[in-house]
């Protein structure tokens, strides 16, 4: 329950959500770059190898954003509410005799359809239309952050120990 409430508030800000996804992916890429960094390997080569192992970063970012947006904890409730309003609208429209009541029925039918359409359009991923991800900012490695941390290694070695062990 606590986790669901937390998710409702965390996901309410899509910009914050996007920033968190970028930070998470950047963290992974930086560690991968350090993993590939060797005395005889340049930083550019290490970055290239990291990107190759990671896959299409912009596509992954867009996929995560889309999943995150669609999986908002309130979304099932919103969809259910729209269906209920639609059905009430149909009932009013069918059983209504007065002109005003029929108009209210029309309104109750039209509003959920429009809302559902808006939700669908908002959920569309631009990457489905463009081969290049023009709509999203390219996710770059944080150049300044690289020297400030040590590599995560399952053997729990520092970068220096790791280099020595590999010689």
């Amino acid at each position, binding site marked *: 329950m606590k986790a669901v409430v937390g998710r409702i508030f965390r996901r309410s800000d899509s910009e914050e959500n996007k920033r*968190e996804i970028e930070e998470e992916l950047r963290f*992974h890429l930086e560690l*991968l770059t350090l993993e590939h960094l060797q005395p005889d390997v340049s930083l550019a080569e290490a970055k290239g190898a990291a990107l190759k192992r*990671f896959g299409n970063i912009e596509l*992954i970012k867009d*996929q*995560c954003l889309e999943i995150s947006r669609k999986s908002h904890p309130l979304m099932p409730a919103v969809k259910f509410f729209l269906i209920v309003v639609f059905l009430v609208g149909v009932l009013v429209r069918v059983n209504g005799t007065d002109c005003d009541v029929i108009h209210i029925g029309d309104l109750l039918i039209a509003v959920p359809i429009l809302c559902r359409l808006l939700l669908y359009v908002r959920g569309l991923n631009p990457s489905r239309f463009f081969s290049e991800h023009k709509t999203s900012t390219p996710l770059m490695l944080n150049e300044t952050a690289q020297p400030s941390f040590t590599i995560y290694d399952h053997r729990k070695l520092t970068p220096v120990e790791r280099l020595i062990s590999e010689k």
Partner: protein
Amino acid sequence: MVNARTDLMQGTLELLILKTLSRDSMHGYGIAQRIHQAADDLLKIEDGSLYPALYRMEARGLITSDWGASENNRRAKFYKLTRAGRKQLDAECVNWERVSQAITRILQTA
């Protein structure tokens, strides 16, 4: 020439993630490292493909995430298994055993 590395069957990635997280909470890079290490590089997994799977699993309530400090004191997002995730892992393991036994039997007899 046959590629020695094997592409993952659909849905298997989630099982690997669930199993990896069954020990302790981990960030995405840690999960990827653990899988590569355990699979001895026999499985071809792009690290980035973990994230959509992680987000989907979180949406289904199989895992939860929290920001914390990594081993190198960086801010990182840690994932951990929920009770539903543990149940799913048990069910998936049983299912995997059944499928692999069936395939093995077919390969031996057919």
